[in-house]
């Protein structure tokens, strides 16, 4: 709720309507540690180290951040700046501003990694270097942290090898799906990754953005305003593609977290999928239930950036439309500009029991149940 309301008074008024934070457990499923070249270079073998040095850090290189400049401090909280670093690059500041301030029980780290157009070897080396950095500099230093394993998603053999390398480290609870995948997410070429994740009790997680968004059905928008709002359609595509192409028929225990795409689109999308399935079901002969059933059995959603209808009761209604009150998980998106605070993200219309589920219980179920299924010790 730190988006600034330009209209006088409304911020104060809204604050009084916020629910109190969770009383039982606070699990934040979208926290971004940001790596710097100095973190990654020593962990990269040649020739990739030289390649990264020459490309200036690999962040936003040829097709990245200048496409849609973010007119909010470059996309970050102003107060999250790190001297000599980058917002999110310093664990100490993250502890101060997030983990200690709100009393996080668990934070799930999602290091965003770019370079979907890079060669396979570079992507694999980068993913591993970032995973090592996360393990050594973050997981080892704060027991509240869990992490996402980065993999070279478009090269499934290399991705599976990376998953196997960390098979015994229970702090890596999920595997990142590339938001900018070369093929669509239901494509059979990715199934070895899903198979490996399912077998090891790892969640698959997609975070919006990333990769090459060079073409799309309506063409490219002009403004960050449009691009940022439209990002949730990544999840529409992913959710439909994985269901429609039979991923969950093949991997019935697989669980997928859809992160930073908020919630309210998911109810009406399930309606549209089911209504259309009644007419066009012959296109999807392998589905054994209406698409919404797969949706509710396999997907999880994070809250941020939480919707704010004028009538807060409508947010609760929209959540209930999803039929997934047990699968919605709080996320803050620290340190980005549209950070949602744990003490103000949910309006008072969210009843206490559901509030506790969203703030902590649901995420705990996701990450422990997945682990237990695979015989791993529960971490969260």
């Amino acid at each position, binding site marked *: 709720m730190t988006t600034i309301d330009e209209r006088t008074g409304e911020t104060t008024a809204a604050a009084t309507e916020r629910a109190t934070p969770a009383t039982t457990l606070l699990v934040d499923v979208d926290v971004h540690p940001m790596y710097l070249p100095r973190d990654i270079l020593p962990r990269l073998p040649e020739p990739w180290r030289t390649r990264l040095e020459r490309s200036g850090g690999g962040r936003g290189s040829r097709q990245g951040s200048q496409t849609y400049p973010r007119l909010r401090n470059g996309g970050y909280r102003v107060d999250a700046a790190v001297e000599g670093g980058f917002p999110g690059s310093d664990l100490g500041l993250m502890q101060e501003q997030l983990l200690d301030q709100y009393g996080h029980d668990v934070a799930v780290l999602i290091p965003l990694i770019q370079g979907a157009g890079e060669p396979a070897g570079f992507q694999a080396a980068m993913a591993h270097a970032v995973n090592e950095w996360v393990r050594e500099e973050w997981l080892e230093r704060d027991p509240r942290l869990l992490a996402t394993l980065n993999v070279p998603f478009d090269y499934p053999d290399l991705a599976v090898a990376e998953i196997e390398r960390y098979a015994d480290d229970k702090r890596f609870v999920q595997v990142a799906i590339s938001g900018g995948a070369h093929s669509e997410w239901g494509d059979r070429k990715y199934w070895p990754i899903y198979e490996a994740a399912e077998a090891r009790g790892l969640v698959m997680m997609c975070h919006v953005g990333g990769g090459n968004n060079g073409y*799309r059905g309506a063409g490219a928008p002009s403004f960050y305003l449009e691009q940022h709002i439209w990002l949730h359609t990544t999840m529409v595509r992913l959710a439909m593609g994985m269901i429609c192409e039979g991923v969950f028929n093949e991997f019935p225990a697989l669980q997928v977290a859809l992160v930073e795409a908020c919630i309210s689109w998911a109810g009406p999308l399930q309606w549209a999928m089911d209504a259309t399935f009644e007419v066009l079901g012959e296109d999807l002969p392998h589905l054994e239930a209406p698409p919404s059933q797969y949706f509710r059995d396999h997907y999880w959603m994070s809250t941020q950036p939480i919707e704010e209808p004028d009538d807060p009761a409508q947010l609760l209604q929209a959540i209930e439309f999803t039929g997934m009150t047990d699968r919605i998980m709080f996320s803050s998106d620290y340190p980005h500009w549209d950070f949602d605070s744990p003490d103000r993200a949910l309006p008072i219309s969210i009843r206490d029991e559901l509030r506790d589920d969203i703030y902590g219980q649901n995420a705990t179920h996701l990450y422990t149940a997945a682990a237990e299924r695979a015989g791993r010790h529960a971490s969260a």
Partner: protein
Amino acid sequence: MSAIAHGAIDCDVHVEPESMAVLLPYLDPYWHEYIRGGRIGIGHRLYPASEALSARPEARAAGSFPPADYSTLRTQLLEPYEPRAVVLTCVASFQAGRNPYYETAITRAINDWMREEFLDRDDRLRGSVVVPTLHPEAAAEEIDRLGADRRFAQILLPVRSETPWGNVRYRAIHDAAARNHLPLALHPWGGVSMAPTTTGGAASYYEDYLYNSQIIAPAQMLSLVAEGVFERHPSLRVVLAELGFGWIPSLMWRYDKDWKALWRETPWVRDRPSVYIKKHFRATTSPTQIPRRVSELEVAQFAHMLGAWDFLMYSSDYPHDHGEDGSEKLLGVLGEDGREAVLRGNAAAFYEIETEPAGVTPPETDEEARR
């Protein structure tokens, strides 16, 4: 299969020439060879006969769909359902390839065919102007050519585009629409040769069809507001035809929230985006995309989120079959006045159907068009 309403203003009824031969009289001889040599057909690829959605059982039984001539339309729709007015749509040009000159020629031919085959024969019928999407200047010329004929009720644009429809490169189309006081109507498909999503093509017709409404239409709504099209043309209106509407409340909430923080990027957007959307956009009712399992209470809650009473205009989307898609349940929660508004009133106001006599009148002088 949802029943077709009786006596409504029906805002989306499909017609299509039976074959390319029907259009040849409206085309320059150069294109006759182009069409014959290239074996270009009308195609019916967007709504293939093999897909259940493409035709209701009665249309399928009649053997011809969508209606290819006036007598078929009369037999299948006008006589049994006695609509007060019908807005006809022909999407045959939405798959017209990458040649902008061919697209210019074929859209013009379709418009002339629609005028002679349908509009000249029944005062209840309104037409949609199709335009070359790859050639905005020619599109504006076509809008100006037909704008004086008030039987054309809207400009039909494919929802898939190379660049979102609000973009400045389409300003000639925005200006021509405003100058001729014609709404823009977005409708599924288009975007020939382009993938529907960032990760490529769809693996099934089911997915491809839904991407029109669930992924692409939202991008168009974002664009038309963000680019300030409605500040330049305060009277310009947009109808979302056959694109659903379940996705709209969520998009309005997100749009308003982001705008509060990011408005500096688009300072010409002076109101909350939802204000523009409620004022300038309307959606047709078919497909309603609400399955049976959704309760009346939920439908009523949703109707409030959307402001359905003002936002929706009835359509049968004939001959397409959307199953039991919830349109009756939705109309049921709106009350008598709401039902009347959706079946007739909103469309009458939007298309000025009751206030304008059919026939040719001079175009209105539009102050804003000169800005």
